[in-house]
């Protein structure tokens, strides 16, 4: 007989798969593939998981625990795995904390152990185990406080060095992800007997059924067991059922898809692993796909998770869950040990002895915590020739890197040491009910099953099979069928239910077993682990109880129980039960195990999908975007818009040269700028004028057709909201412009005003932002240029088409356009709007016809400089914190009408004359720079907040004034023109003397506007 010793078989690097002793229903032994673990090459078969392949090659040591760095093996065969976590793949595709038990093997897979140094077998931080008597739960809270300065400098860096498990990739994830939404009548989660029965039943009704299976193969536990359904092995029945489902036109099947979360309104999140089972995705193929599933009804048939038994040193490699042992034997053809002890408190665990025996292993002992012998226990002992210890326990184990013996404590109290290389333990099964608790509906404790079962469930959800606490296969089939039928019926589909296939009934007969040894006798020798990954022991639970951390939430937070990557799937109930015992309470009264989504950890990349990098948000392009690109424009983001910021020319070495030139061109000749991004809203209806009166602070009734007016909007709380010009195009027809930033929210605001506040007003709106390409043409020669474009039938002379005129015109021989005499720059200026398709052509035309006048395009930066020169407020001034009074527009507020914000704008704090109000600033010493974001303090005042009287909102170098200028808000500002204040910018270590001036720096009387 050969006993497994860690190190021997793996050290030899023998690719013989020596532990592959039988055939498995889930692997293809006709092909051999290879993989590496910690640099060593091994052989395996398609269908293997990394865990089954490691076990096949006799590798038992797979990882280290988080806190004590204890050597750990493979505990489970599923997603609940706490121990066997590895770094998968390398480089930019490195995936830390990957569970070997659910990692599908592919040829060339590379995996490495993590959280160890220098090697898995020789981990230096294993020393933590020596100090473990100090490192109890709550240890950190009680220490590292002296001296105070040492936390950040000494203790925390030390703790952080030891922190974490695997390493995140160092580079950007090269793979792509996508998302999709799907709808169904009935969602079935899981393809064990209950799930398949539900899917078949619902599918046969013609309902739209979506079946999700997180595994690559259907069947769930059927693949792990010997039981038959319908006269064939269960796994074959499952495949047959899947084939039938595939034939149903309204049934959709997603394998490798984990439904990870239950959200409101029948929405579920699911992750499909599209290309995780291959080395790299095909070109353009997503690695994973996030599904948003909208289901009218859902059937949770997610099976169960086996509980470990809490006994001293229950964490050594080679101590596994009994159900996992059966999975490795029956599905993967791997026998995880040659000399096994089966330790159970239920009949299900006992069957492991049979499967091990059939696979050729020796059963050294069957330890059954139940004191009364069950028929199955007797049968199993007889079949395997194992010694049966009813009422027994495992009191300790030996083997640093893998178990080689266990101490069995007989019911009588006598102990004996039994050599072994495998302990298959079963503490009973917990229904996997996570999905039923995500909406904070609580599960209930079932005394007979010694487990929590789903309680009240979210609307439309049912659970079936083990997930519902129903264990025997015939019952699972029956329950699945009923759920499938009920769910389909609730969606309006009915069917006759087919006969259930025959299946054998297995006994369960569990007794509670929350710890192997009495808790009042704390073992000094060995830790009895509850949460394997986070190293939470029975003793920690006891300490938490002593210190008053007795509620489940306190227990978790104080001991870190259930906080590891497995979220306590194997730990929580054992811990809860021990706490109940410690506090002399019942399990039901102590608390419950609720789960937070996701059921399985989900890659952040998958949740983000395709929205990343340059495609993080959609791009909005102006009609002249391509033309501006040809011109070499530098673009800037303005919300979603890309706008030309400036148009550099050869020889310009600094962006400011460019901007200065663009400003000078506008001020002296003519320039043009794409202003399409401003929100444009078409407003029509008999009550349009009344409506404008209500949303703007100023008056609109008397605005003549063919004229535009500046308008200011407040929020209902009286602060300034948005501004822009609105032109009257017809009797009941207006076109409103908004700022670029608020275009969407103003639309929403107008709709609210109309639909909710004043539904009696007869008015309609629609966005025309995208309909019109709108170009500002500004400068003393703008009219000259326009004359080449606007058809001669339209008189655009100053007399006929003065400042603030608006008209529909034709250009270029009949093309309809809109012309507005508006100016943001302060020059003679127009805005010309053409259907968007012609925007590009208009820009090219302006360049051509404007060339003799020295025309140049200008970008948002020059636009910004010129609006500061004119003292026009923009985003930095309309920041949601300023009032009309602050902006110098207090007098615009009409007192003759109701409008949004009127009442609240009258509150004392909003009308306080001491509020900082808009002023202009110029440096006292020519050439000094004024910094936006600087604070305004009186000259000579100490640089403290007590003397803070305002701030600089916008600043620019003015090529027109040949110096820095700024807009700002200063307490009592308008009354302080001429005063010198200090612009404090401690962030930039500067203090600059500035003179308070009018905010209109250029052409204060507006002569140019009217030229």
């Amino acid at each position, binding site marked *: 007989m050969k006993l497994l010793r860690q190190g021997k078989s793996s050290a030899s690097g023998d690719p013989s798969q020596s532990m592959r002793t039988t055939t498995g229903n889930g692997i293809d032994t006709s092909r051999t593939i290879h993989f590496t673990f910690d640099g060593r090459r091994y052989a395996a078969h398609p269908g293997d998981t990394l865990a089954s392949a490691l076990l096949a090659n006799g590798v038992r040591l797979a990882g280290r625990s988080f806190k004590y760095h204890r050597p750990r093996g493979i505990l489970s065969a599923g997603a609940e795995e706490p121990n066997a976590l590895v770094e998968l793949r390398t480089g*930019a595709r490195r995936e830390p904390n990957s569970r070997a038990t659910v990692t599908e093997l592919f040829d060339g897979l590379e995996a490495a152990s993590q959280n160890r140094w220098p090697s898995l077998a020789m981990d230096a931080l294993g020393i933590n185990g020596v100090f473990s008597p100090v490192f109890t739960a709550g240890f950190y809270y009680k220490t590292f406080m002296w001296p105070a300065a040492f936390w950040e400098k000494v203790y925390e860096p030390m703790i952080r060095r030891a922190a974490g498990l695997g390493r995140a990739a160092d580079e950007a994830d090269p793979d792509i992800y996508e998302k999709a939404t799907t709808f169904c009548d009935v969602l079935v989660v899981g393809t064990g007997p209950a799930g398949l029965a539900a899917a078949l039943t619902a599918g046969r009704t013609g309902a739209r059924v979506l079946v999700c299976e997180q595994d690559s193969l259907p069947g769930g536990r059927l693949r792990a067991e010997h039981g038959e359904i319908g006269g064939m092995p269960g796994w074959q029945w499952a495949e047959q059922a899947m084939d039938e489902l595939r034939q149903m036109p309204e049934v959709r099947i997603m394998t490798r898809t984990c439904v990870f979360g239950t959200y409101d309104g029948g929405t579920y999140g699911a992750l499909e692993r599209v290309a995780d089972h291959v080395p790299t995705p095909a070109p353009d193929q997503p690695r994973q796909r996030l599904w948003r599933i909208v289901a009218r009804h859902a059937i949770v048939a997610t099976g169960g998770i086996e509980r470990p038994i809490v006994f001293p040193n229950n964490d050594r490699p080679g101590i596994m869950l009994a159900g996992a042992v059966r999975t490795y034997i029956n599905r993967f053809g791997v026998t995880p040990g040659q000399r096994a002890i089966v330790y159970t408190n239920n009949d299900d665990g006992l069957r492991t002895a049979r499967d091990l025996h059939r696979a050729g292993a020796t059963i050294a002992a069957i330890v059954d915590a139940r004191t009364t012998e069950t028929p199955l226990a007797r049968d199993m002992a007889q079949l395997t020739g194992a010694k049966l210890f009813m009422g027994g326990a495992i009191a300790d184990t030996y083997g640093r890197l893998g178990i080689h013996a266990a101490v069995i404590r007989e019911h009588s109290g006598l102990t004996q040491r039994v050599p072994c290389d495998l302990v298959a333990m079963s503490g009973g099964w917990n229904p996997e009910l996570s999905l039923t608790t995500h909406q904070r509906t609580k599960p209930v404790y079932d005394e007979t099953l010694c487990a929590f079962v789903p309680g009240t469930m979210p609307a439309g959800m049912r659970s079936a099979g083990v997930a519902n606490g129903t264990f025997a296969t015939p019952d699972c089939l029956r329950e699945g069928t009923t759920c499938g039928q009920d769910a389909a019926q609730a969606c309006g589909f009915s069917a006759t239910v087919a006969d259930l296939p025959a299946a054998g009934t297995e006994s369960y007969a569990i007794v509670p077993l929350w710890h192997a040894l009495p808790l009042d006798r704390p073992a000094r020798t060995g830790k009895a682990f509850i949460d394997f990954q986070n190293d939470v022991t029975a003793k920690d639970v006891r300490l938490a109880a002593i210190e008053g951390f007795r509620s489940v*939430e306190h227990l978790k937070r104080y001991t870190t129980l259930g906080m590891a990557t497995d979220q306590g799937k194997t730990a929580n109930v054992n811990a809860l039960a021990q706490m109940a015992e410690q506090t002399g309470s019942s399990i039901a009264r102590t608390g419950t195990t609720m789960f937070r989504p996701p059921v399985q*950890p989900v890659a952040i990349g998958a949740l983000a999908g395709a929205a990343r990098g340059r495609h993080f948000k959609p791009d909005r392009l102006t009609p002249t975007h391509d033309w501006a690109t040809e011109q070499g424009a530098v673009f800037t983001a303005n919300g979603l818009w890309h706008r030309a910021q400036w148009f550099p020319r050869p020889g310009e070495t600094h962006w400011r040269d460019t901007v200065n030139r663009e400003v000078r061109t506008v001020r002296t000749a003519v320039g043009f700028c794409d202003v399409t991004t401003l929100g444009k809203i078409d407003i029509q209806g008999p009550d349009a004028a009344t409506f404008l009166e209500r949303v703007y602070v100023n008056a609109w009734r008397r605005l003549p057709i063919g004229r535009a007016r500046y308008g200011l909007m407040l*929020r209902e709380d009286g602060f300034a909201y948005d501004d822009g010009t609105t032109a009257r195009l017809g009797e009941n027809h207006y076109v409103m412009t908004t700022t670029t930033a608020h275009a969407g929210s103003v639309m929403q605001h107008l709709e609210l005003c109309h639909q909710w506040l004043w539904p009696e007003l007869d008015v309609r709106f629609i966005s025309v932002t995208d309909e019109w390409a709108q170009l500002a043409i500004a400068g003393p020669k703008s009219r000259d240029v326009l004359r080449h474009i606007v058809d001669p039938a339209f008189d655009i002379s100053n007399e006929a088409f003065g400042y603030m005129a608006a008209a529909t015109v034709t250009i270029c021989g009949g093309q309809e356009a809109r012309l507005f005499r508006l100016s943001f720059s302060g020059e003679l200026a127009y805005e010309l709007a053409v259907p968007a398709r012609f925007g590009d052509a208009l820009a090219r035309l302006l360049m051509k016809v404007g060339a003799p006048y020295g025309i140049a395009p200008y970008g948002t930066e020059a636009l910004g400089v010129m609006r500061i020169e004119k003292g026009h407020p923009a985003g930095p001034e309309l920041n949601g914190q300023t009032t009309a009074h602050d902006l110098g527009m207090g007098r615009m507020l009409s007192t003759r009408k109701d409008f949004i914000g009127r009442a609240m704008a009258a509150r004392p704090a909003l009308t306080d004359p001491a509020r900082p109000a808009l002023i202009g600033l110029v440096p006292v010493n020519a050439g000094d720079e004024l910094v936006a974001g600087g604070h305004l303090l009186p000259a000579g005042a100490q*640089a403290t907040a007590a003397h803070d009287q305002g701030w600089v909102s916008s600043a620019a170098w003015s090529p027109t004034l040949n110096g820095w200028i700024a807009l700002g808000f200063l307490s009592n500002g308008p009354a302080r023109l001429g005063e010198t204040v200090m612009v404090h910018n*401690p962030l930039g270590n500067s203090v600059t003397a500035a003179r308070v001036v009018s905010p209109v720096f250029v052409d204060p009387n507006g002569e140019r506007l009217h030229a």
Partner: protein
Amino acid sequence: MPSNRYSLFSLLRETLRGHTGWQPAWRDATPQAAYDVVIVGGGGHGLATAYYLARRYGIKRVAVVEKGWIGNGNIGRNTTIIRSNYLLPGNVPFYECAMKLWEGLEQDINYNAMVSQRGVLNLFHNDAQRNAYIRRGNAMRLNGVDAELLDAQAVRRKLPFLNFDNARFPIQGGLLQRRGGTVRHDAVAWGYARAADRLGVDIIQNCEVTGIRTQNGRAVGVETTRGYIGAGRVALACAGNSSRVAAMAGLRLPIESHVLQAFVSEGLKPFIDCVATFGAGHFYISQSDKGGLVFGGDIDGYNSYAQRGNMPVIEDVCEGGMALMPRIGRVRLLRHWGGLMDMTMDGSPIIDRTPVDSLYLNAGWCYGGFKATPASGLCFAHLIARDEPHPTATAYRLDRFARGAVIDEKGMGAQPNLH
């Protein structure tokens, strides 16, 4: 002898005797007939208030009544960030007061809450944002708070793995507060509870307030699921549920309850050594001392008491995360959960008397409650003890809405879900 005080000595002694001599961190008190002050809410703010009442104001007949287990609300659900990088005059000194208290907290309460001043970096992505951060940073500096402006190169040196080269909204720089950082959130509740308990405060768990008894316009006690408790003064510190509890005294508040989700990844070897916030999306992140990436984003945006959220925000937050740091694509989200936020109409809190005599209100913390905990406790204790606002919390008055003296850091107006 039981171990009361945490010291190296007590730790070693308990190690030698198998940790059997520790005392409960706080007594599981049963309600007495009456107290000088009854604090409603055993969260961070309520427990801190009790501690400072007993410690600094000498009021020791204090009860904290908690409907469930202490620390089970936002103190245990937040993303653990502390900072005082505010803009407006009403806020900066208050949050700086909190920061200073954090800096001495552990020695004060003899509990290691792992206050970690690893720095908080707010990134900006355009000129307007930069200017707004300059204004804010300068406001901080004028208030004596540390602040530094980093350009893109400096940010790159600090966090080289951010997306600098392929970004929709390129990083232009950031505002850094080095004294900002993180604190182990649960430990704050437990530490204050333990320290208050040692000073005689009764911490009464599983005791839900069902009514506030008033006589002649004055609060005189609370009805609870464990009977009536008389009180000289009643202090509400139950953010998330402020409206519900205040309604028991007939008050309507300028508050909506909203859900804010938080996220943690699997544990990873440390690689993010500060708190970073994305300026072009809803995403902020730090890495806990255990290695998990702790991150979050915007509130879900609708009134909710459900303490859980929905997928659009989860996706939005992860999109922000990937846009900012694409190396976390294969890092897995481990769990997400929701907290219940008192969102006020201007995004700033309330610490004030109420129209009902002897009834005090500490509410409206939006999602800034955790960082405020010590100052909130201190200022609320001051208000309760002296019946006048603490000098650093004078702006947080209830009547500011009627006066118009709102403290609106974001300039979003009276819409709680936009703050």
